[in-house]
Each structure stands twice: as C-alpha cells, then as structure tokens.
C-alpha cells in the first residue's frame, strides 16, 4: 500500500544556468537547464508541498528577469495539472529561506508552514553583521521574513527544532545544518508508513540540485561515480556530502529515490508529460488507487 502520490511540477526554468552553480567545481563546463519546480505530496483528501517557489509579481519579477527565468506560471495554473488548487494545500515544508523557496507563501491560504527554527534564527543573526559580510545574506528577501510574521500570528508557521518524525503519517523532516543554508531541510516520505520502510522517497530541496550531485561525473577530474556537492553553500561542502549520504542511506542507496527538484532530466527516470504551457509534470510515484496524472 502506498499512502501518497508524489509529483514534481515545473513552474518555470532558466534555459542556460551556469553548470558551476549546480555542481561544485564544474568551472568552464558550460550551462545546464535549471527548472524551478513545486514538489507535491498528495494523499487521500490531503496535500502538501515542499517549498512554494517565488512570486513573479513585484520584486520577484525583477529577480526572475535577472535570472532569465522563462515561462513562469503561478501555482493555480500549475497545480491544476494534478487536480489541485492552492487552497487544497494543507501543509508546506520550507526547506530553506531563499527567495525562490519561501517567496510565495501568500498563494497558499490554508497551509501550515514548517521551517527550521535555526534557519530563521541564523538568517536574522546574519543581518546583524557588518555590511562587508553581506555575502552571507545572498538570496534572502527580508519581505519573506515579514510575511512569516503574519503566518506566525495566524498560527500557520511552525518552527521545527531539528528532525521531526511523522509530522504526518509516514512523513519525516530532517535537517542538514550549515550546508546549503544554515539549517536546510529535506523531506522523507515512507510511503508504506513502516518505520523500516521499503518504499522511501526523499525530496531533497536544494541539498541536491541534479543527478550529478548523487552520481557525480566530473569531466575535469575524470570521475564518474561520487557525490558532488551543489555549487552554492552558505555552510560547508562537507556537510552537504554528509547530508547526501544520510539521504542515500534512507533509500538504501537507490539514488533514483532521492529526488532533485532542480533536475531537468526527471522524465528520463519517471513518467512525465508536458503541460499545455510546455512545463514538465513528473510523477514520482502513485498512491494506491490513484490515477496517473501523466498517462
């Protein structure tokens, strides 16, 4: 029995993104397509998302233009491809506080948001540092922190302190401190709801961008099988590697079960289709009795 269907839904993409931004050390290796996606966990009458992307209005539009994000579509349009509306989303797991993950909370009026306490504390601390250390704040939009205040007042923001098992049946939250960000979460779905699950999926957030981070192939290093950290870390590359190992252990080192949301080749591994807006819909797994949204 599988509790949940899991989908990765593209809502925009950067056609040519520096490969070195995706894979540590891949200097002068050109560009890759970088999709921006929603990860959705859909159960029986219940749905959750991993991150909410960014809003294309106001300053988000400027950022999207700056990064050459193409074909941005809002959550209403994108979620409709799997029969959901933003109002249907009950929970959102914010893996980290970068603008493209925490930037569109207003679009989900019925969701409760889960974010690591330390992720909030450390970003706020970082803002107290002198201007010359502002590198640390890259990717943070203070407006997102302000919107978080409103969520907290409405009792819709839960500050999670470390790992949290069974936040919903079969769903666990884990954290990699000082990695991509100060306290970057990943979401583990034990889809058979067993503690010793044989059907585990990991939604990796930005701890893993693409397949190469799991099964690294470095042209320059002549290496074709090792973990390669993502290209951006506020914290430590060591911690990224250790987090990758922890995720891989959870799935019995079956790398296809660790889902990199920024991967542009998911259709090579999972059933997928293009929407009418030419955005990819990938079906990672199906709940028992659920109908496919891609076939």
């Amino acid at each position, binding site marked *: 029995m599988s509790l949940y269907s899991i989908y990765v839904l593209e809502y925009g993409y950067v056609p040519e993104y*520096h490969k070195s931004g995706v894979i540590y050390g891949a200097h002068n290796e050109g560009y890759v397509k970088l999709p921006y996606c929603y990860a959705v966990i859909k159960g029986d009458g219940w749905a959750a998302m991993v991150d909410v992307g960014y809003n294309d209005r106001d300053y988000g539009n400027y950022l999207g233009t700056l990064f050459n994000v193409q074909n941005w579509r809002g959550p209403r349009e994108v979620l409709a491809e799997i029969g959901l509306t933003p109002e249907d989303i009950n929970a959102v797991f914010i893996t980290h506080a970068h603008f493209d993950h925490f930037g569109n909370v207003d679009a989900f009026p019925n969701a409760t948001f889960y974010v690591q306490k330390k992720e909030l504390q450390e970003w706020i601390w970082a803002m*107290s540092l002198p201007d010359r250390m502002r590198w640390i704040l*890259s990717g943070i939009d203070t407006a997102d922190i302000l919107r978080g205040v409103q969520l907290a007042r409405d009792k819709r923001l839960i500050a999670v302190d470390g790992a949290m098992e069974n936040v919903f049946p079969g769903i666990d939250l884990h954290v990699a401190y000082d990695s991509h960000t100060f306290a970057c979460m990943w979401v583990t779905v034990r889809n058979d709801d067993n503690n010793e699950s044989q059907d585990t999926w990991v939604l990796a957030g930005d701890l893993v961008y693409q397949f190469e981070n799991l099964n690294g192939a470095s042209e320059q290093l002549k290496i074709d099988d090792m973990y390669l950290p993502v290209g951006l870390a506020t914290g430590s590359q060591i*911690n990224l590697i250790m987090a990758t190992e922890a995720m891989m252990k959870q799935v019995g080192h079956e790398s296809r079960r660790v889902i990199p949301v920024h991967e542009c080749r998911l259709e090579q591994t999972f059933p997928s289709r293009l929407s009418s807006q030419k955005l990819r819909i990938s079906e990672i797994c199906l709940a028992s009795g659920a109908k496919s949204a891609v076939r």
Partner: protein
Amino acid sequence: MLRINSRQDEAPPAHRTARQTYGHESPAPSSGIDGVHHPTCSIWDTPQESQPDALLKSGIGDEAIASYLADTRPLYDAAKRCVGQLSGILLLLQTDSLERNRNDLLLASVSRQLREATERLGAIKAPPTATRHQAALADLLVLLSRILSRLDRLADLIDPASPDLDAVVDALFSAQRSLLRVSEPSAGLTPVDFTAACCNCRPAKN
C-alpha cells in the same frame, strides 16, 4: 558558542559545526576559529561593484549620481537588514524561538546600524536629482527607528491579536514598501542581493 566577529553588539550565532553535527573529525581551521575564516582573511574582500567607476561602466552615466549611489548603497543595505531584523524578532517571538540574550543583542545591532546609517546619510551631499531619493531613505531610517522604539516592550507584542503588534507589523510593511521605492538594483540597491555572491549566484547568460 561560536563567534565569528568580535563586536560586542552583534547577535551571537548558534552554529553547529560539521564536527558537532556529524561527528566528523575535520582538520583544525587555520584561523583557529572553528570552521570559519579569520576576520582578516581576504575571502571577505567582496567585489566592490557599487563603486562609482563600476556604476559608470554599468550605464549610470552621471558621475555625481554614480558617486551618490555608491555612497548610499551601504546605508540602503543597513535599512534593509534592519527591516529583516525587526521582522525577524517578531517572527521569533511569535514562534517561541526568541532567546532573551540574543534578542537584546539584535536590538542593539539594529540601534547601532540605524544610528550609523543616519549619521552617514546626513553627511552625504546628494546631487539635485537625488535629493528626493535621499529624503526618502532618511524617512525610512526614521520610520525604522520608531519601530525599534516600539520593540522596547516586547511583552506587549507576544499576543498574536495584540493591537500593538498590528501597529508594528503595519509599520514594517510600510517600511518594506519604502525600501522598494528607494531600490536601484542596477546600482546594487537591491532587496535581494546577489551581486556580492560567488559566480554560482550570478545570473545565467541572457
């Protein structure tokens, strides 16, 4: 407790090092501070993209405006960080994540940043076309100082339904709107800063 800066009025981090997190035995950092580059390390020498020469090259053709924006960028960033810290204090308060010692240091940090930014902004002579920008930035700093003063009595802001909290949050949203009005992304006055990041965060080629 890990400290990466010796200033007394900056809030302490609550980092966990690789060793603490995973039991990994990493070599001792050369700085002698666990896992962090020494404050004098050249890694902190971030690109100075807001300097007048760079701004002139970026297309801001008026030397006086370029110089004004270069002088103003750190003050804009201070205002931005103050919006974030003041919002953050409320966020931590509402999620029961605020630590007393940390809070005092955060408030002291905001106070210092606002004081320094206000003094430095007053010392800048804006060219005529930038006087309204300068005035708007000054107004923003005044607004933030007022908000800071409202946070002296945090106990009044714990209740999510508190009218006092309403007023502070409304003022912060007003400050955020003001921040957007005085933004000039082409000159580095940007609400979300990528200009100082490594190549990984730069925009893809267009």
